[in-house]
């Protein structure tokens, strides 16, 4: 990183939400409505501070804020440092910007909930953790945020904790994330052991200079450990199972945490450690395989879901796969690009879904929706725009980023998987087609046709529609605005993320772009026709191949598989260790020793009759015995 540090005041960015969390909880206990206002204000203040800093951030520089030394012991020195470089700036903008909108939205969405002071406190605490994650100047501070967002996710998924299934979903999220975190920790240990620091500014030259005689195997090992962490947080195979369950949380939470920000933390971390990953081509190949598999599996699962939030959840998993594909190709700026555009349109989709759920009185099943375009026009239009965006139709934002991902994959220069990349590309394009298909399906089932439910749907109030409109506009034009067409190029801005993998840049005509978005157009068109005109067709398809449809609607049986091969055996083992090993064997030996002493004592007791004559006889007999023993024998 040939960049120079400028010291600046960064801590308020993270501090505002922390303070907001405390105030929202304490004051919100007295007056519930204050919580939302405080939390939104804190988030907005944080956003303004980010804007102020980003505005002032010169090219090829970064801001630095050294707060205090956190851990200092022998060679292990960890500073509590915040840094804002271009990458952090982009992430901060997304986190605080989208975060503020979602806070605003939540004030209306949660306005009837008795525990909303807790809700807003958790939400602000999440903002705090997420900002620590993106502002942290070393892996350790990042890790604080990393675990912190996991905690907030746990708390918010189980927000309606009276439902034990929701609470269990929260626990599942935390535990699965912890598995990833364990890998992450091992990566940190390896780096600490062999390089001696986790500070990004110190780490990058140490790794890239090649002075560290560590070898590719080391890079691969560290990269894979870190990627395990990313898999947990960003819901990739095999650790993605928590995300669909995480939809138990209130919908704004799904929008903020499980779509726009937290789940992209893994991508951010890969980009942040990109200098390491580009030196580990084998690890990148693993990332690609995992990403493509995840994208495909999640997209096909989304095809058969009826719960509107589950569709979006699987779609998120799938899109995260797309982000990791870009990272795997070494095009980290593209991954971040997709993070940004995805944050726009997926947050909009989730908020739209929330608006629908809110309007339909907590109905989530799309089979009981339909025809909502009349009742909820704003929600319908914004949702529709976002569907086009995620489908990758030119000129919506999703097109720009997805096209960039495909471009990056076409320039795959990694020796591993070189001969497979053609087939992988076909699979990726097919997945992109599926994305368009299932998203259009959800749109049609929700908003078109006749209303099939029994509630009285109504449009949501302004605090909910304004964020929808803003996000829809961003989702529509954000991609174009960031891709250089309007004078600002994210690629140029994030030039520091270009670790020798210069992607070709080519401008294309509108016609070419329209042709390039054929997968999306095909998916949208096909789904539209199938679900509005030929309503029998989807059912026929599913009946045609019963095992396949069963597999898809069963979500590939991942949960059942994990239950059968991991969770239940471990539970059995735990019970076995306790009952048989601990109580039976180990404590059995302890108590057995005691019982042995007891039993021998009991045996000796028989001789103690209390009869004097008996004792005298024994005394005499013993004397005689010893006399004979010594003198006669």
């Amino acid at each position, binding site marked *: 990183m040939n960049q120079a540090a400028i010291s600046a005041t960064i801590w308020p960015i993270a501090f505002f939400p922390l303070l907001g969390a405390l105030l929202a909880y304490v004051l919100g206990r007295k007056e519930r409505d204050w919580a939302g206002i405080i939390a939104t204000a804190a988030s907005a203040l944080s956003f303004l501070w980010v804007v102020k800093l980003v505005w002032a951030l010169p090219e090829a520089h970064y801001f630095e804020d050294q707060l*205090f*030394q*956190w*851990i*200092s*012991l*022998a*060679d*292990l020195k960890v500073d509590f440092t915040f840094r804002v470089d271009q990458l952090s700036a982009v992430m901060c903008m997304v986190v605080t910007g989208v975060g503020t909108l979602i806070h605003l939205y939540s004030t209306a969405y949660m306005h009837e909930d008795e525990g909303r002071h807790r809700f807003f406190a958790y939400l602000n605490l999440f903002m705090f953790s997420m900002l620590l994650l993106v502002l942290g100047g070393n892996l350790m501070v990042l*890790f*604080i945020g990393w*675990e*912190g967002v996991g*905690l907030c996710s*746990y708390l918010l998924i*189980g927000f309606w*904790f*009276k*439902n*034990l299934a929701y*609470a*269990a979903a*929260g*626990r599942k999220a*935390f*535990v699965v994330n*912890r*598995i990833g*975190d*364990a890998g992450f*920790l*091992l990566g*940190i*240990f*390896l780096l*600490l*052991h062999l390089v001696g620091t986790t500070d990004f500014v110190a780490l990058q030259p140490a790794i890239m200079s090649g002075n560290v005689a560590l070898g590719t195997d080391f890079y691969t090992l560290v990269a894979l450990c870190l990627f395990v962490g990313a898999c947990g947080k960003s819901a990739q195979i095999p650790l993605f199972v928590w995300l669909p369950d995480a939809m138990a949380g209130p919908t704004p939470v799904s929008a903020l945490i499980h779509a726009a920000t937290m789940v992209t933390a893994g991508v951010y971390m890969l980009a942040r450690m990109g200098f390491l990953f580009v030196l580990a081509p084998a690890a990148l190949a693993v990332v690609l395989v995992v990403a493509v598999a995840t994208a495909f599996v999640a997209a096909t699962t989304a095809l058969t879901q009826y719960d509107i939030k589950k569709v979006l959840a699987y779609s998120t998993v799938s899109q995260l796969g797309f982000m990791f594909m870009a990272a795997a190709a070494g095009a980290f700026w593209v991954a971040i690009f997709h993070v940004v555009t995805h944050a726009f349109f997926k947050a909009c989709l989730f908020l739209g879904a929330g608006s629908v759920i809110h309007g339909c009185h907590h109905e989530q099943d799309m089979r009981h929706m339909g025809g909502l375009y009349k009742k909820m026009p704003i929600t319908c239009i914004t949702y529709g725009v976002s569907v086009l965006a995620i489908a990758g139709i030119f000129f919506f934002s999703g097109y720009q980023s997805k096209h960039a991902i495909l471009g990056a994959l076409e320039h795959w220069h990694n020796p591993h998987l070189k001969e497979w990349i053609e087939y992988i590309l076909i699979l990726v394009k097919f997945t992109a087609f599926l994305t368009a298909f299932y998203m259009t399906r959800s749109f049609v089932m929700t908003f078109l046709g006749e209303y099939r439910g029994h509630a009285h749907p109504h449009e949501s109030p302004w605090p909910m529609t304004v964020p929808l409109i803003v996000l829809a506009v961003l989702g529509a034009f954000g991609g174009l605005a960031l891709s250089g067409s309007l004078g600002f190029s994210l690629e140029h801005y994030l030039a520091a993320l270009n670790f020798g993998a210069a992607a070709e840049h080519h401008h294309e005509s509108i016609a070419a772009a329209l042709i390039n978005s054929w997968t999306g157009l095909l998916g949208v068109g096909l789904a539209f026709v199938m679900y509005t005109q030929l309503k029998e067709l989807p059912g026929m398809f599913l009946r045609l191949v019963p095992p396949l449809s069963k597999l898809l609607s069963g979500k590939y049986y991942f949960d059942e598989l994990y239950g059968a091969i991991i969770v239940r055996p*471990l*539970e059995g*083992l*735990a*019970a076995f*260790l*306790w*009952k048989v090993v*601990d109580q039976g064997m*180990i*404590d059995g030996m*302890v108590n057995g020793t*005691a019982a042995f002493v007891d039993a021998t004592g009991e045996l000796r007791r028989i001789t103690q009759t209390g009869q004097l004559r008996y004792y005298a006889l024994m005394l005499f007999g013993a004397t005689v015995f010893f006399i004979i023993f010594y003198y006669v024998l």
Partner: protein
Amino acid sequence: MSEFPLLSSIVFLPLVGAILLYLFPGFGPRQDPESRAVRAFSMVVTLITFVLSLLLWGGFNPQNTGYQFVENKIWLPSFGITYHVGLDGISLFLVLLTTFLMPIVVLASNSVEKKVRGYLASMLVLQSAMLGTLVALDMFLFYIFWELMLAPMYFIIGVWGGKRRIYAALKFVLYTVFGSVLMLVGIFYLVWAYYQQHGVVTFGLESLARFNGLSVQEEVWLFAAFALAFCIKVPVFPFHTWLPDAHVEAPTGGSVVLAGVMLKMGLYGLIRLAYPLFPRAAELFTPYLAGLAVIGVVYGAMVAWAQKDIKKLVAYSSVSHLGYCVLGFVAFNTVSAAGSIYQMLNHGISTGALFLLVGVLYDRRHTREISEYGGLAARVPIFAFLFLVFTLSSIALPLTNGFIGEFLILAGSFQELPGFTIVAVAGVVLGAVYMLTLYMKTMYGEIDEAKNGALTDVSMRELVTFAPLLALVFIMGIYPKPFLNALEPTIKNYIRVVEERRQMLKSSAPMRTRQVAEDQAADEKISSVSDKSKTALDALIVKRSKV
């Protein structure tokens, strides 16, 4: 350093307090039926002790790596036994932990209803014994304090405990004594061997730690005797089965002291005695100790997961956490050893707090079955919040104290024992599993037991009990520097001294005893004589042949 015997006053103040509880008629059951005066007096005694121990921290010079506040008085000169106490960075924090936890335990004694005077007197005697163990620098003194810890704890469990209290108390005492008797034999053997070589009887730790007359074989046996005593106390897997029974039956305060301080005595003994005295054997035992520690981490977590009794779950989680501490220490580098000490403090705070929380529930509902609870978060939000914070501290979430300890241990151990550490990292995941399962089953869901619907939230007094613990969880998690700064020089020096001694012992083949040395000298004489005669004979033969 002042002439005032600060350390001794801290050690014996609680003991004096306990005696006064019985001497003053005002504390008798007739004059003080509500036991108000008894509680207040014990509170004052423990608070004064705590304040005095803060003076220790204030006067402690972290750069001085030797023992500080040393008092050395001849006690039983004919046996070389001295009253020798002192403090270094390692014992400083354990002393502080002890004195810090005691007022909290006294405050939590309100749930004890019968024979309050006896209970609090036992606690005070126990405190003196623990503090004495931590500062003793004479093996004999150490052993006396070590055994003195047992008696009050025996009564605390056996008199104020639950249904199976007699069984638990007897198991606790017999198991621990079994180990420490072996240690006593070890101590005598060591002193005897020292006498054989130097002709002086001494129990002084500093002299014995410079003794170089042991063969490796002897070191191994002695280390095994010491280590067994300490491993039982920690407890290291598979010597842990007394712990769940003792914890479940002990009253709340007893559990807090047991988990908070007494378990640390095992590891402290390993640090203070076993490693410096027998460095070569320690090296040989390292893989076994590390293996047992790691098994303890995973095994404790797994068994904790299967528990149906809250207290038993927390007890098994102690086995798991102490496994980390042992691993960190035996990995034997500055980072991991400091992490090990730090984690002992953390464990004292978070597990102590968890036992107090269980006590709060038990006082209200008189059951510890997990299945009896559920949905409490809606009914008792402050309790749920406290429970959450200490749960998170227990599973080592960053910015709580637990993370610093666990991270230092694992990061440090990874450099020395990577294989063991990778397994131990699995404990990080399992810890989240059992603690969050416990939290979910007790706090979340609907309130299904009618009795839970009438639960009251934590009272003001209970809140005061938890407040200092809560504050420390965050202080030690966010700003560990003052603690680590005071620990670092001591630990660096400690490790350097032990390793230098190990090298020294390895390089110089030590004389077994004076006797052996004389024998060897005699052997050499004989052989040299025969050599001489042989050469003379050779010379003669040569002469003859010439002639």
